[in-house]
């Protein structure tokens, strides 16, 4: 069998123009990128599933447990004060990262999924009633579908779904038509995880706010790739996950506007979310603590803080520029291979290259690429309705991050040729 190294497009010796980022330095920041898998150099292109972690994040977590660990908000002792202050600093770092107006508008949760569930179970249960409507799009991840289905089932409300076009773009005209007098919530992704489409949030927020409907944005696939300014976007809620943006797993953020958060009932009850408790009455704590019952993931918050400081130091605009160039290069390279079809060809895209191959199932593509050390995702990407839109059961998805290189895209292209060779 021919090895990838013998194929004409093999990457190793091709020299590419320099990226706007110092990729050699950045790659050294991520220890896992130096490892081999299956005897090959790791080519990690599964960033939309989860990203790798830089040493500064790993160190921050280790330092916390080695030197700083204590419970927060309740101790009078040195370590408790230190841990509390580190936790507060992490929240401030995140505030700066998305340019929120107030630090109280950032609630630490387990991830984007929990953030959306929080809004559905608090704001949603209060404001959505029988025959009301929740409007989402056809390109949602399951995490921005199921919480709304649960809410609608409970309340006798209706879930409306705005369609997408063949390129995988939201059909804004249809979207606008679906906003009606009973629409109570609009929930959309900033970037589609299965297609890479970047949604026109400015326009969506404008349409929604003209009718006084709040917009919740699933930002899980946007936060690692572009500058997020929640005040400029104008959205009411913004949800994202630490692990997709180079921070640890198990923590994420819900941003919400103060006036909305103040008026919402709490999500979970317990310690930390209260000001005072008697058996007759409990007075809830102020924001953001009202929504953070129980001992939080302090190490996770500190790790996320380190991740956003790392990203800020590099610069999100530079990261976006690098990834844009990489995606354009990958799009040209992969779509030029006969028998390969891209799924998701929106004008505005970020970081995701989903594709199918004639006569070859994505699962087989994934296994063969894995033998070359190339990690991609195959399947429905927790977006089964998107697959139904395109009439396919699954796709192969390569997804990029700041540390990926054109050489890695070349390796992907060579891997795809190898897949065809195995199946020839």
């Amino acid at each position, binding site marked *: *069998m021919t090895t990838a190294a013998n194929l004409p497009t093999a990457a190793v010796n091709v020299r590419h123009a320099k990226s706007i980022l110092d990729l050699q330095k950045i790659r050294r920041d991520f220890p896992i990128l130096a490892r081999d898998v299956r005897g090959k150099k790791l080519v990690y292109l599964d960033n939309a599933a989860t990203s790798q972690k830089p040493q500064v994040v790993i160190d921050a977590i280790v330092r916390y447990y080695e030197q700083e660990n204590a419970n927060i908000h309740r101790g009078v002792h040195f370590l408790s004060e230190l841990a509390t202050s580190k936790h507060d600093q992490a929240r401030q770092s995140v505030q700066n990262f998305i340019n929120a107006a107030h630090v109280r508008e950032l609630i630490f949760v387990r991830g984007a999924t929990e953030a959306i569930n929080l809004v559905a179970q608090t704001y949603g249960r209060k404001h959505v009633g029988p025959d009301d409507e929740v409007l989402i799009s056809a390109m949602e991840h399951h995490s921005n579908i199921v919480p709304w289905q649960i809410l609608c089932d409970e309340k006798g409300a209706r879930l409306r779904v705005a369609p997408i076009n063949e390129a995988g773009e939201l059909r804004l005209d249809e979207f606008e038509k679906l906003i009606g007098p009973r629409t109570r919530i609009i929930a959309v992704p900033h970037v589609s995880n299965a297609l890479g489409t970047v949604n026109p949030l400015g326009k969506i927020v404008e349409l929604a706010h003209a009718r006084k409907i709040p917009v919740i944005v699933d930002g899980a696939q946007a936060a690692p790739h572009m500058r997020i300014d929640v005040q400029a976007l104008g959205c009411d809620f913004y949800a994202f996950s630490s692990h997709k943006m180079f921070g640890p797993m198990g923590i994420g953020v819900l941003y919400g506007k103060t006036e909305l958060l103040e008026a919402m009932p709490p999500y979970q009850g317990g310690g930390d979310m209260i000001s005072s408790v008697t058996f007759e009455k409990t007075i809830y704590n102020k924001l953001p603590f009202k929504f953070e019952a129980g001992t939080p993931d302090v190490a996770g918050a500190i790790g996320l803080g380190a991740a956003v400081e790392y990203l800020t130091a590099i610069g999100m605009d530079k990261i976006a520029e690098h990834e844009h160039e990489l995606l354009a290069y990958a799009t040209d390279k992969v779509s030029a291979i006969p028998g390969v079809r891209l799924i998701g060809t929106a004008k505005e895209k970020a970081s995701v290259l989903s594709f199918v191959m004639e006569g070859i*199932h*994505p*699962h*087989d593509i994934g296994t063969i690429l894995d033998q070359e050390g190339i990690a991609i995702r195959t*399947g*429905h990407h927790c977006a089964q309705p998107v697959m139904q839109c395109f009439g396919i*059961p699954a796709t192969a998805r390569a997804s990029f991050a700041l540390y990926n290189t054109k050489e890695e895209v070349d390796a992907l292209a060579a891997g795809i040729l190898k897949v065809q060779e*195995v*199946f020839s």
Partner: protein
Amino acid sequence: MGDLRDLYQEVILEHSKAPRNYRELSDASRVEGFNPLCGDHFTVFIKLENDTVQDVAFQGSGCAISKASASMMTQAIKGKSKAEAEKLFSTFHKLVTEGGANGDQADLGKLAVFSGVSEFPVRVKCATLAWHTMKAALEGKQEPVSTE
């Protein structure tokens, strides 16, 4: 580490491209099988007469491993008794999970080409989806089978 050619043997590729008994059977019992993680989805049709598999067929979509396995399964169990078909599944299951070195292989015939699957643990579900579905059909079940 598994070699790709151990997994994607010629016979497997050939069956995945041109699956046998790929059709609907009317007046047969039918059960659907899903692998929710990768979206594989097959329907297996079985006609039993006096506890013997009179006819068996399948339809659906899935990866090369799942499709070839379904195709070769239909060839292997046609004409067998219910008990023989179930025993064959148990031998096949052992083959794809433990590999080909454990004896018992004589009964498998051509199905032995799936021994490479044992080197690729995430693909065991692909190789056994149609078989789990077939077993449910033999047991007279009607609800869909899921590998999760």
